[in-house]
């Protein structure tokens, strides 16, 4: 694994325009940095990333399998009792999952460590699947990078292939908070994938979803929603007014309800509890657990709320001192403690590996680089190549 400086494509402004991305003169494309790329060997990709990521996925499924039958665990994850059966049934029915992104720490030498699993509402999808791939093709053509460069990037193809296999029979609805361009952009891309797969789609804001007298959800044309592909976290849905109608609504949700267990950072102590010592896991505990109290005694750990996003409300403690603390709106819920595994440093940047899972297969890589140890929404995507 190397970080290699490279000349940017000369026409970045027009590439941004073509993809309707924000371009700031002098700074480049917002959230994107192609002044360097990360290079991996095929062996690193296959043996260190793909293989272990799929193994972690399997461990995660074992956690879900146990959690759905354990009220104490569901309670600890902050999932309201109203949804316990709903989640358990979706797991037992085998409701299919589409995608997720595992955030991993990797330096090219040591085994990858799972930092967290964005299993419900992952983003940077378009950057990974489309924009990064286009960079590879054009950079080879412009002879900026060697001709033999490849990429771990089957994300688009696998999503198009998977969507029609999720049991969607009729019109599928896509919903998110429409005021957030990033969320809307990601969801619109998924919608394009669905159309390419021959599915009929309809986009709407979460706030536009209606409720009819039969307890079903409706769109703005009063059509009953039967499949909802949402970029809206399960914990929000379960907390909101219409949430109580979700279990009896008859809607097929993507991601399925059981993903509420995996997208919760409580997953990390549950994984550690079942597979302590696994080379790809870091020690992790619920803060209010006696083992958690004991763990703080080691003096070095990361404290995370069970629900938070984009690096908010994270605290890093090293040798008893707070090394880093980020603000955010998520501090009020339960917390977990995780072993501190600093991201490796490459030329002043801290790369976080995002491994894309589509239908539980590791099919893509997205590297986000930040200037701090915690990857925030200010991180920039840096492309990668595979070259031996």
């Amino acid at each position: 694994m190397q970080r290699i400086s490279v000349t940017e494509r000369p026409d970045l402004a027009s590439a941004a325009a073509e993809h309707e991305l924000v371009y700031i003169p002098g700074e480049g494309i917002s959230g994107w940095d192609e002044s360097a790329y990360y290079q991996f060997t095929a062996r690193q990709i296959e043996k260190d990333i793909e293989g272990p990521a799929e193994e972690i996925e399997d461990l995660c499924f074992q956690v879900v399998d146990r959690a759905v039958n354990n009220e104490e665990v569901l309670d600890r994850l902050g999932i309201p009792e109203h949804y316990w059966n709903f989640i358990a049934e979706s797991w037992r029915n085998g409701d299919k999952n589409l995608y997720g992104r595992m955030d991993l720490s990797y330096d090219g030498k040591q085994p990858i460590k799972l930092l967290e699993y964005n299993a419900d509402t992952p983003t940077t999808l378009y950057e990974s699947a489309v924009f990064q791939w286009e960079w590879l093709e054009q950079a080879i053509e412009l002879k900026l990078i060697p001709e033999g460069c490849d990429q771990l990037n089957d994300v688009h193809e696998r999503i198009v292939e998977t969507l029609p296999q999720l049991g969607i029979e009729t019109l599928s609805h896509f919903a998110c908070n429409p005021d957030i361009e990033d969320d809307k952009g990601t969801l619109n891309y998924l919608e394009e994938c669905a159309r390419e797969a021959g599915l009929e789609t309809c986009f709407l804001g979460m706030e536009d979803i209606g409720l009819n007298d039969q307890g079903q959800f409706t769109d703005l044309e009063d059509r009953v929603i039967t499949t909802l592909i949402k970029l809206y976290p399960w914990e929000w849905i379960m907390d909101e007014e219409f949430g109580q109608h979700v279990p009896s609504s008859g809607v097929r949700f993507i991601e399925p309800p059981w993903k509420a267990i995996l997208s919760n950072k409580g997953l990390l102590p549950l994984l550690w509890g079942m597979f302590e010592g696994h080379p790809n896991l870091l020690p992790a505990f619920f803060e209010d657990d006696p083992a958690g109290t004991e763990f703080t005694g080691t003096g070095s750990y990361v404290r995370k709320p069970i629900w938070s996003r984009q690096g908010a409300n994270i605290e890093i403690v090293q040798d008893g001192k707070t090394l880093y603390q980020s603000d955010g709106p998520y501090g009020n819920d339960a917390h977990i403690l995780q072993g501190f595994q600093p991201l490796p440093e490459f030329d002043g940047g801290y790369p976080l590996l995002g491994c894309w899972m589509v239908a539980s297969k590791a099919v893509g890589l997205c590297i986000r680089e930040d200037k701090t140890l915690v990857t925030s929404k200010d991180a920039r995507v840096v492309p990668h190549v595979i070259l031996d």
Partner: protein
Amino acid sequence: MMSWKSVPVVLTMSVSLIALTACEEPKVDASIYESIEHCKRDPIVSDDQCESSFKEARSQHAAVAPKYSTAEDCQADFGAGKCEVAPYKSSSGGSIFMPLMAGYMMGSLLGGRRSMMSQPLYRSAQSPNSFRTAENRNVGSKTGRTTVAKSATSRPTFKSSTRSRGGFGSSGRRFGSGAT
């Protein structure tokens, strides 16, 4: 994270995406009739086919037709005297209204069984000459054999009278992005 200015357009990964713009949507053969009698006058359709496809459309009508909680709202969209009471009640026991079925559409007679699927059609007050599906897709004013956009022939969804909206979205307003 990258920022969108607006809706992204996929330009690189797929040729088929580009080909599938709205104006180039594939057309398929269909037949549109106002009634069974109208259908029976078409020499290429047997009486049996007319009756079974009418029955199929009629049986979907109550479920898939747009629904309104007042007759006035329904008539505003479909015209005076063009609405009826739906066989459903609201949770408070009130009546629900829907437009009268104005005709039906059969798929191509040459296709397989699936393409024979029939569905009810409606006429709006605003463009009373055109037929519309229960999904509000305009399928034109031509009766008998015609061609329609392929997407207009897919099975219509159940429609109901929406009681309330806005029960989702509060966390998004509070926290912003739902992405991780």
